[in-house]
């Protein structure tokens, strides 16, 4: 009766419709696109409804969606039931994708900085002017300081591949990716143990230990959904976390482990498993390298010893080791994702990888799976030129000894740029990357920016990093873009290919980063390297998959059936020993610990609290806090504090406090929570931005980037975000 499709006009229908569409296109009303469509649409008749396949871009998971488009306006996003990777679901952020599209806070046209950096004075310019300026400034830097004098930071995005390609043809290998503040230490650890980064077969496992991960809140498809299905099927979940996350709350056992001591727990598990010979000897002889060294090495790490470090009772550790190995190989130590926590994160994750190795779960149901074949080809592109005047290496080369060359380390790069050594970096191209909100030590990032001559940001809204840039270029949301094909690993669900086509044309003057790069390349005598369209690029990717285009059109996804288990049968591991390296020979060669040696975390100063960060299901890092639909869930962040600690500090719930670290300070309200250790505090990321362009969260809460001190993982150069201790003082009640 109240259906918006009811063509009958009633006394209130007119008002209702005008109200409804005003809400839906609040932002869009300023756009020529929507105006045009409104004129075309036969007003008074039932709206034309189209359903279009697309893929979510609110986080990097890429879940399948169906967009409902009515008279050219996207009115709803629903899950694509055929998209097995996302298990036919769409989370809160996915549903809020529509708000990202129609957000009045969106950037609308290219803007050039007028006043000082961060002063917020902008001049609207045309795209031609913008691209001319960008090309000219980068070429000037290339001439004066070499092409490596421009830094490129592509965030996790389907079109980031073009930024990498542009950097390559432009000639800079100074690239720092999102990964260097996320999962590199995990990748390092698993690569150096199994020769490959695995996917956990959560769905079929019977026992899972989750440490430094929060899959029920940090939604990952299909792991999050599979974990709940596994739980329903009787899988036991053990969570170690200083904070009572929703994952901890839904686990069978939760241990509020002392922060930074995870390795002690896993070494003790290895101790029990090896001492009690709870591993498969035949498997170990055949596949594992260094089992004897390990047995010897972990003799010192008894559960009783670990109890002192972790504050987890020895008998619980012993029991868990026994339960875990009894469930093996359908048992997993969950590898996790964001492992940018401590200075020894790689070794910590190595200790977890080693326990996985002892469980013999590699390449088996309910264990760790290798990446599956998807079948995308590399489009034929011209060979990238080589510039002889470039320095030999990345700026941060050698600052961590197991760094990934193509990912870099933002933390080390920043230090080197500030120092100007070994060579200067003066330009920065930023795409979907916001270190001023998401990464440690905001002040230092600003200091780094002040060393630069020219900074370009391509973003959807005026993020803090865009706000501090010189040229800001408006990007469309994924609903307005054509994207290259991407292969997705969906654990046991699938290996699949997705590709986006625009659901509606781009709003305002926004342009996808591909167009921007192509425009810049054309102005830098690099046109030949971008002499293709996204469509052509995608055709090149799909050339080996004749059925893909049809499947993408009809189902919104293409599956390439590939082997799931036993991929490694008859194959060797990509390690020096060609086996699963419990004892890592390369580490031994370069002087790192070949087996993880426990190092206690830095001692906690008196009256200081360890700051930990972590996810909420409604927020992707610091990108969705300003989204009206999600903002309502948490209008500002608060500091989680244990009631006993609060009593000690004379605080009650809701009191405002000043939080201080060596990096900076912030002010926010405290929430008294039993679900956090007395020595630890937590706050959500993404608040108190510098940019007033984020209207809903500007001036709300406190910013983690201003508080977290800059540490990095020794081996991978990954940022270490849990090494900060803060001081808390009362600021008076609200």
């Amino acid at each position, binding site marked *: 009766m109240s259906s918006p499709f009811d063509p009958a006009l009633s*006394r*209130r229908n007119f*008002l209702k419709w005008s109200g409804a569409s005003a809400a839906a296109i609040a932002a869009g009303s300023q756009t020529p696109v929507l105006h045009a469509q409104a004129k075309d649409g036969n007003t008074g008749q039932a709206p034309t409804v189209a359903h279009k396949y697309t893929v979510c871009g609110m986080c990097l998971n890429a879940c399948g969606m169906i967009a409902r488009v009515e008279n050219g306006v996207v009115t709803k996003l629903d899950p694509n039931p055929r998209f097995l990777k996302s298990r036919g679901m769409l989370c809160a952020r996915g549903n809020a994708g529509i708000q990202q599209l129609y957000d009045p806070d969106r950037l609308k046209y290219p803007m050039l900085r007028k006043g000082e950096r961060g002063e917020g004075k902008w001049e609207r310019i045309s795209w031609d002017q913008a691209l001319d300026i960008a090309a000219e400034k980068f070429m000037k830097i290339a001439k004066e300081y070499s092409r490596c004098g421009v830094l490129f930071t592509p965030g996790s995005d389907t079109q980031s591949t073009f930024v990498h390609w542009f950097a390559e043809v432009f000639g800079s290998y100074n690239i720092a990716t999102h990964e260097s503040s996320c999962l590199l230490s995990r990748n390092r650890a698993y690569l150096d143990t199994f020769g490959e980064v695995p996917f956990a077969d959560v769905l079929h496992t019977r026992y899972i230990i989750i440490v430094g991960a929060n899959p029920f809140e940090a939604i990952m498809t299909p792991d999050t959904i599979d974990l709940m299905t596994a739980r329903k099927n009787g899988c036991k979940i053990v969570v170690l976390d200083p904070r009572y996350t929703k994952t901890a709350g839904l686990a069978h056992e939760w241990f509020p482990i002392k922060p930074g001591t995870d390795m002690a727990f896993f070494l003790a598990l290895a101790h029990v498993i090896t001492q009690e010979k709870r591993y498969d000897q035949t498997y170990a002889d055949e596949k594992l390298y260094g089992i004897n060294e390990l047995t010897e090495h972990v003799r010192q790490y008894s559960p009783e010893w670990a109890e002192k470090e972790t504050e987890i009772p020895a008998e619980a550790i012993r029991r868990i080791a026994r339960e875990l190995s009894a469930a093996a190989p359908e048992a997993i130590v969950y590898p996790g994702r964001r492992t940018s926590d401590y200075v020894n994160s790689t070794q910590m994750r190595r200790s977890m990888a080693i326990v996985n190795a002892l469980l013999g779960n590699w390449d088996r149901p309910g264990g760790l799976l290798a990446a599956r074949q998807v079948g995308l080809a590399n489009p034929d592109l011209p060979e990238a030129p080589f510039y002889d005047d470039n320095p030999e290496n990345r700026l941060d080369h050698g600052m961590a000894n197991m760094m990934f060359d193509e990912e870099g380390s933002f933390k080390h790069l920043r230090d080197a740029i500030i120092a100007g050594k070994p060579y200067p970096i003066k330009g920065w191209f930023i795409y979907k990357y916001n270190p001023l909100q998401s990464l440690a030590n905001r002040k230092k990032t600003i200091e780094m920016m002040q060393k630069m001559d020219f900074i370009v940001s391509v973003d959807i809204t005026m993020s803090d990093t865009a706000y501090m840039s010189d040229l800001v270029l408006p990007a469309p949301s994924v609903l307005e873009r054509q994207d290259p094909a991407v292969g997705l690993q969906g654990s046991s669900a699938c290996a699949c290919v997705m590709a986006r086509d625009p659901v509606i044309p781009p709003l305002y003057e926004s342009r996808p980063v591909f167009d921007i790069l192509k425009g810049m390349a054309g102005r830098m005598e690099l046109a030949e390297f971008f002499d293709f369209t996204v469509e052509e690029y995608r055709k090149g990717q799909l050339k080996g998959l004749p059925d893909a285009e049809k499947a993408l059109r009809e189902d919104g996804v293409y599956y390439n059936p590939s082997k799931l288990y036993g991929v490694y049968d008859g194959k060797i591991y990509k390690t020096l020993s060609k086996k699963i390296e419990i004892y890592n020979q390369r580490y031994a060669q370069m002087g790192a610990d070949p087996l993880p040696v426990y190092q206690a975390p830095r001692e906690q100063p008196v009256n200081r609290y360890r700051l930990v960060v972590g996810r909420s299901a409604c927020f992707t890092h610091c990108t969705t806090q300003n989204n009206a639909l999600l903002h309502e869930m948490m209008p500002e962040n608060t500091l989680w504090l244990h009631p006993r600690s609060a009593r000690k500090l004379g605080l009650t719930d809701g009191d405002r406090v000043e939080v201080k670290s060596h990096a900076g300070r912030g002010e926010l309200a405290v929430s008294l929570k039993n679900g956090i250790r007395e020595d630890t505090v937590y706050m959500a990321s993404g608040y108190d931005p510098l940019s007033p362009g984020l209207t809903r969260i500007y001036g709300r809460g406190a910013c983690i980037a201003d508080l977290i001190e800059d540490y990095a993982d020794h081996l991978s150069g990954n940022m270490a975000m849990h090494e900060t201790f803060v001081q808390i003082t009362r600021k008076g009640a609200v």
Partner: protein
Amino acid sequence: MAHQTIHRHTRLSIFMHWFNAVCWFFLLLTGLGLIRNDALQVFPAWPLWMRSVFGSPETLLLSHETVGIIWAGGFLIYGILLFRQEVIPFIREILTVEIPRDSLWLITKGIQMTLGYPALEKIAEKFGFDSRIPDQGFYNVGQKLFAIPSILGGVVIALTGFIMILSQYGTVAAELVQWSIVIHFITVGLVFAGLLIHIFMAAIAKGEQPALISMFTGTVPEDYAHHHHKLWLDEIRASDAAETSPAQGNG
């Protein structure tokens, strides 16, 4: 003399009277049909029937609201345009009350209407008051006593109705709307109770046919005027004598 007629109502007044009557009945019946709640409705079948007559509950509400606006709007325009000519004299007339005479009228007329003349005479004798029914002006005091609350009631009904319509198109404090419905309902109930008597007294009761007819013709027989509204008749005669204005005569 008995056959002579006297002008009593202008065409506009006649129109407004019947306009009011028709609107009232329509609004009453549709309004009653809108109350669909077991705890409040005495005739549960009525709303169902009304809704089916109108095709749907929405049309019923829409009709009620439309006619309500026409009714209130009609009186508003009438009141504004003829404020001096009609409203002020009317109000002055209905507010003019002479307590000893008019209260006696109420008593004697009341007894006469209910118990009849013989009873009136007996009671008057017993309690020692004049059994003759006192003379009245253009309106008798009974009409005045009905007119005052029904006008006030009309204003209340219009206002509360307006609040309810308004609350569908704008933000109105919830409590105001909540009380508006109740007051609307109560006022209609009370005015309607009076209306029943008005209808009886003015149209059905014996000897009142000239009044009913006058609501079509605009004139009353002189003897009726003499009998029911003697003071008014005296006034007309006095002014006729003074001005010999044809407008005041029966033409």
